[in-house]
């Protein structure tokens, strides 16, 4: 009997990773790791709590010969401080790539974010994958996201044997998702900036799971945006999701930033203020064409879910 391929999935405690594991566990042997907790994912899935930057992390590679890594584990900007995040997300990922090289893992998929492009009033629409990543110009809090991308690109071209695929999704939304903009859709009252309603894209968590699984199974290395070609103004999205909008003064910018620092809302962090003002619309056509991908869930499906929470 042919042995199942073995995959390492990082960030196993996250909602997206759980969905990916659930979909792949029938056909693959999954080893799940997370720095936060040992996740109970049922009998066929081995699970570990491990920090990438500790020596013990290598034991996972010594014990298992992986056929692929799906690297979804990232400390988001809402969690921990900038220094810890940088260590975990950038230095930790470097460690992961180096171990992948040392133990001859032939495929790695890395999860990034559209935040790396930066929200600027001068952004053209439909940013493609060759657009410079300007997020770190705006805030030091997104430096780790941009550095993670740069690191992945260096390894992608310097070590083609790793077959690295980087996915840059738009806002992921749906059950269990805890990123900034999904939190805003789920709250009863959500802050918006007075006079600004940037255009946004949302992808349902189930579609993102399918995008990851497709990219993993087809294994065509490169950097890809993942987003539907459907759009909505942010303030409309908040309204349709059934949330009440709280208008925050938008001028002068220093006042907005002061309010954000004072309120300390998890869903309205000062470093993301520009994302509440200016659109970052990404072009997902390369991914759609390369992998034959088309999201199944509509924006209405996403908003119906958030309305049902209220």
């Amino acid at each position, binding site marked *: 009997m042919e042995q199942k391929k073995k995959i390492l999935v990082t960030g196993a405690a996250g909602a997206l990773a759980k969905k990916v594991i659930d979909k792949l566990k029938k056909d693959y042997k999954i080893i799940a790791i997370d720095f936060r907790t040992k996740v109970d994912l049922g009998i066929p899935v081995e699970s570990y709590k491990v920090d990438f930057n500790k020596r013990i992390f290598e034991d996972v590679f010594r014990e298992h010969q992986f056929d692929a890594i799906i690297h979804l584990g990232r400390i988001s900007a809402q969690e921990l401080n900038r220094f810890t995040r940088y260590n975990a997300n950038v230095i930790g990922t470097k460690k992961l790539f180096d171990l992948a090289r040392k133990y001859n893992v032939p495929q790695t998929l890395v999860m990034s974010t559209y935040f790396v492009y930066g929200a600027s*009033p*001068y952004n*053209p629409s*439909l940013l493609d994958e060759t657009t410079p990543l300007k997020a770190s110009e705006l805030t030091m809090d997104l430096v780790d996201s941009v550095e993670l991308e740069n690191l992945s690109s260096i390894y992608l071209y310097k070590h083609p044997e790793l077959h690295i695929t980087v996915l840059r999704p738009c806002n992921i939304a749906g059950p269990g998702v805890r990123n900034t903009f999904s939190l805003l859709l789920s709250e009863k009252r959500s802050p918006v900036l*007075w*006079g*600004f309603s940037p255009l946004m894209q949302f992808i349902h968590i189930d579609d993102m799971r399918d995008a990851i699984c497709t990219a993993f199974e087809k294994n065509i290395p490169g950097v890809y945006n993942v987003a539907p070609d459907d*759009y909505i103004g942010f303030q409309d999205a908040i309204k349709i999701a059934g949330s009440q909008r709280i208008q925050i003064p938008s001028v002068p910018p220093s006042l907005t930033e002061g309010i954000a620092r004072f309120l300390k809302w998890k869903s309205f962090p000062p470093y993301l203020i520009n994302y509440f003002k200016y659109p970052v*619309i990404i072009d997902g056509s390369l991914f759609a064409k390369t992998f034959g991908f088309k999201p199944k869930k509509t924006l209405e499906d996403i908003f119906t879910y958030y309305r049902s929470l209220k």
Partner: protein
Amino acid sequence: MAKSNTSIIDKILNRNEMDDIVNVFPNKVGSQGYDAWGFNMKNMKNNMRFTKYLYDSFYKVEAFGLENIPKEGRCLIIPNHSGQLPFDGMLIGYALLTNQYAPRAPKAMVERFLPTVPFIGNWLSSVGAVIGDPINCERMLDNEEAVVVFPEGVRGSNKLYKLKYQLQRFGSGFMHLAMKHNAPIIPVAVIGMEETIRSYADLKPLAKVLGMPVAPIVIPWVFPSKVYLYFGKPMYFKNDVHKESDVKERVDEVKAAINKLISTGLEKRNADIADKKNEKK
């Protein structure tokens, strides 16, 4: 003749008529009524009610040569720019939307600082304005859209009143895009906007402090003025130039075509004024 009882508000809020107009042009928006540049069908309908009032009642616009606008496919609409505020773009947009030969919802390239202004940035993009980045224009041409570009930029719209109907320096970006994307250029003359808001000075140091491209000193009044729009025949340019001076020659060709349309428009306006005077006598 009986005086109409219709108020300005009634004229602006004539909903059914707008629906009839908007529902005929091709709909390229997503499930929530938006396209990738923030154009929004619902907002555009609302805006059209206001523009219709400006077009029909305030500026009493007469448009000529609308049959020159391609019924479909990519094209660049290249007008002279005037009037301090972007009303010339709105009137051209309305003329295209209600074009009896082939209605089209055009996009218009606008100044890059506009998205930073609360409400204005969102409102402009919802009615088809897009920041003037060549990447945006390329994408829209690839999307087979009609794109309005003002090659004079603020040099034209915010020029002093004494320079009226004198074309200012044209950027050459539109010509590069037309050649690269094989898009016909429709030269356009706008007559009448120059007289509506008159600028007598530009306070450059104040503009610098405010972070704005210009700080015009204007008479705070919109003078009523009949507006004429002249759409010229499409101009085609092959992508076969070898140096920038060749591009400049082609830009000058377009400029000359617009100047010719401006002369035609001014003659027509003078003739209309003379006719009115004769009628009064």
